[in-house]
């Protein structure tokens, strides 16, 4: 059998299987791929995953078909060495050039595609650190106002809602600066709202992973790690710590809820009122907190001068005069 026959046969099998597998995946599996579609980010990240998968499947299938073909067609009869000579033993320049070109084009396309997706989707729900470069409209104003204690949020106002996530061994707590800075173990979010998560830690590195929201941001002590998403569906979501943080890392999870805007406002206002006495004893709201001279067994103090967009100032912890 000559060369073209082998290649033509493999190519035919490859095209048929790849097209079938891609179509089946895209329409049957794709819509159910994690992290679902609860937020804009989740939807975009699901789309990215599916695009990568549709490109990856033909690659996998191609190599598998080739290996299977080689095993069945080109296996040797039992016996001594049987050297392969002639044309097929030569190194084929066209094959090399084609291989390198195709892999390069695919890889550079993927990098470009990923970059566009990352920038267009405001960091894709990943932690952007204290100096986000891809902020959604209104986020910086909302964050700055919240830190100064002047933040507001009302239903149907299209305002960004800042939420602080505080990782600590071994739980997450949440502060709502627009509602007097109360702290809660419940994470309740309004639907159809852009959320600015400000993630920090009181001890070791944790990672705030709101699975269905497609948000993941490491919680570093004395660092404000900002991540954005926009909620689009109501419902429950899971929060897990995804950075090893010690013994009880495995049980560091809880559940949050995305609720209608009016319901969120009621919850926030009633919790603010109910927690008012406790809130007074908390450190004043800040993007990061440092332990006092007694370490974690003492109190935590805010870094009073830190703004959300300054790496330098987050380091300059101010402790109250004793």
């Amino acid at each position, binding site marked *: 059998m000559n060369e073209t026959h082998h290649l033509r046969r493999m190519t035919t099998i490859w095209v048929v299987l790849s097209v079938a597998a891609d179509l089946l995946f895209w329409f049957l599996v794709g819509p159910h791929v994690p992290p679902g579609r609860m937020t804009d980010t989740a939807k975009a990240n699901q789309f990215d995953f599916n695009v990568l998968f549709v490109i990856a499947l033909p690659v996998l299938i191609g190599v598998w078909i080739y290996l299977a073909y080689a095993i069945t067609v080109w296996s040797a009869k039992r016996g001594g060495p049987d050297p392969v000579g002639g044309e097929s033993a030569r190194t084929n320049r066209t094959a090399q050039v084609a291989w390198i070109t195709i892999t390069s084009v695919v890889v550079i396309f993927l990098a470009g595609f990923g970059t566009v997706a990352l920038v267009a989707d405001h960091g894709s729900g990943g932690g952007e650190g204290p100096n986000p470069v891809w902020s959604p409209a209104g986020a910086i104003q909302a964050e700055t106002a919240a830190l100064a204690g002047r933040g507001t949020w009302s239903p149907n106002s299209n305002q960004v809602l800042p939420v602080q996530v505080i990782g600590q061994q071994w739980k997450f707590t949440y502060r709502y600066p627009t509602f007097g800075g109360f702290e809660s173990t419940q994470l309740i979010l309004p639907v159809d709202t852009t959320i600015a998560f400000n993630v920090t830690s009181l001890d070791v590195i944790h*990672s705030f992973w709101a699975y269905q929201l497609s948000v993941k941001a490491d919680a570093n002590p004395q660092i404000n790690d900002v991540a954005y998403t926009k909620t689009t569906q109501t419902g429950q979501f899971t929060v897990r710590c995804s950075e090893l943080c010690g013994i009880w890392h495995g049980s560091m999870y809880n559940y949050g809820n995305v609720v209608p805007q009016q319901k969120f406002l009621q919850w926030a206002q009633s919790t603010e009122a109910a927690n008012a006495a406790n809130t007074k004893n908390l450190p004043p709201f800040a993007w990061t907190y440092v332990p006092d001279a007694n370490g974690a067994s003492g109190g935590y103090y805010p870094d009073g001068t830190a703004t959300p967009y300054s790496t330098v100032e987050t380091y300059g912890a101010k402790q109250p005069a004793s």
Partner: protein
Amino acid sequence: MTERPLATTDGASTASRGPWTQRPGWMSQHLGTAIIGGIIGYLFGHWLGNAVSSNYANIVNSGQNSIADALALIFGVVGWLLGIGALNYPLAKLAGRQPGKETEVQGWSKYFRYSTNHKTVGLQYVVGVLLFLFTGGLLAMAIRTELLSPTTHFFSADTYIKIVSEHGTIMMMMATSIVVGPLGNYLVPLMIGSRRMAFPRIEAFSFWIFVAGYMVIFSALPYGGFPTGWTGYAPLQTQAGPGMVSYLFGFAVIGMGMMAAGFNIAVTIINYRAPGMTWSRLPIFVWSILATAALLTLATPTLFAAGLFGLLDKTAQTAFYVTEHGGSSYLWENLFWFFGHPEVYIMALPGFGIVGEILPVFTRKPLFAYKVGAAGMIGVSLLSFFVWQHHLFQSGINPDMRPLFMLTTELISIPTGFIYLVGMGTLYKAKIRFEIPMLFAMALYFNFLIGGVTGVFLSDVPVNVTVHGGFFVLSHFHYTIMGGLLFAFMAGLYYWLPKMTGRMMNKKIGLWHFWTMFIFFNLTFFPMFIIGLLGQPRRVFTYAKNLQGLNDFSSVSAFLLGVSFLIFFFNLVWSLYINPKKAPANPWDSLGLEWQTATPVPAHNFDRIPVILSDPYHYSEADAPAVADLGDDDRVPVTSSHDGSGAA
């Protein structure tokens, strides 16, 4: 087995040194004296640590003294090295004395001594890495046992996280040496036509410090373990108990071995090639070992320094990684991964080299696109220094660098793809012989493909949000390291053990080993991709109830995967000791130079330095030309390997 004494190690010819003498038994140094030295050093260090730091308040409060722990381990390693005799030569030189004659002990006891014969070191490494692998594997079984149920716990959360950490650390440190140590040391001189490595004492040092490192890392368990995983992130590292000292110092110790081994191998390959062994005739395995050696030499110092910083933080109250005192937890993350990503390729490249070496033999074809393959390995090793921040995509550091690191990470799949070009081109219209080494080599192509493609998913920042830090990434790197490197190592063992031991491995048991390992490896780790996508983070002792089915499937497969390793060990014992079958001189009809020497390999490898005439892949010609002129009796033998043989 009779061997002639090893060539003197400082380059002078054997004749000028007089006869070799055997040291009397009680003066000779071996594993036993090393253990005694280690114990004495440990006790002395512990006493010293307590003596110098007994006024520290933290000791009174905690009952722990990490200074004593650290000094105990440091002096323990020094005592170990003194005991094995690693420091005899440098100490004698330091004292201005001519070092005494060194003896190459004959018989089995040489494997327990500071041997400067690269073949002895290679076999020592085989046993060493297998011991490492077996320990790490047992810990993996414990992990999968715990994950059988989300609610019933076999271990406490505390014990579990320490098992996970120890498993990761031991396996990672084992995997850096699993090919370079045994096969690199044994085969590189044989393949390049050299009589020895460039620095035989450094070679012996790299093995014995590797063993010391293994014990230091393992000492974390009696110290109470460490809770950080193999990545050891600060500030958890700073917070952890004395087991962390073992981890930090263990990395430094193993790091010294890695640097020594890498440096030695790189110098050997560059300078000790026989005449005619041009770069374009170098076996592809040697190319891969050269690329790996370069990475070992250049990347490991970062780990070494990072480990020492951590050790200082824990003992001398410095604050490299302590944010409250002006340090930064990001410093560890960056230092660690600046080593850690080249490390990943330290664990991948030798596997590519092995399959590249094996494929032509069992397809009876020349290696396809040899130059592209070698370039791919060099390309991978260069690019590997520019991708480390993809481990930190969600960590909060400089977001504007993410597109760049996404690009470099994805670019690395181009040179990695060259390895597939080489493999698939070589298979084209071949006459494939399915011996055990070939099966393992082809399994690498199957497994590594899945590992590589999922790596592209991980490098894409938007997708990374979901898959980072979960079982998806865990499965990905098991597919590349275990599915790639470990399968290649097995291919290499089945292929070269006949040369190294003179005995054939049993094929029937080998087939059982291959098929159980291949099937249960895939059944263990493939479900983990789905488990990860469904939201299970790494290193957790409990998980969502709906994931129990998949986790149980994975666990049961993992136990059967463990059985496949028992089959392998049984095959080793059966084929080497119980029912040994003498191996033919060249059982696979290979053209490689390493198969042209006698078996067992003489102490000098070659009676005279061979002259290399061609690359070893001329399988397409029925009467393949000789790869090398090994010398005829009527020629004047070349007595020194230092004849400026650097090749063209």
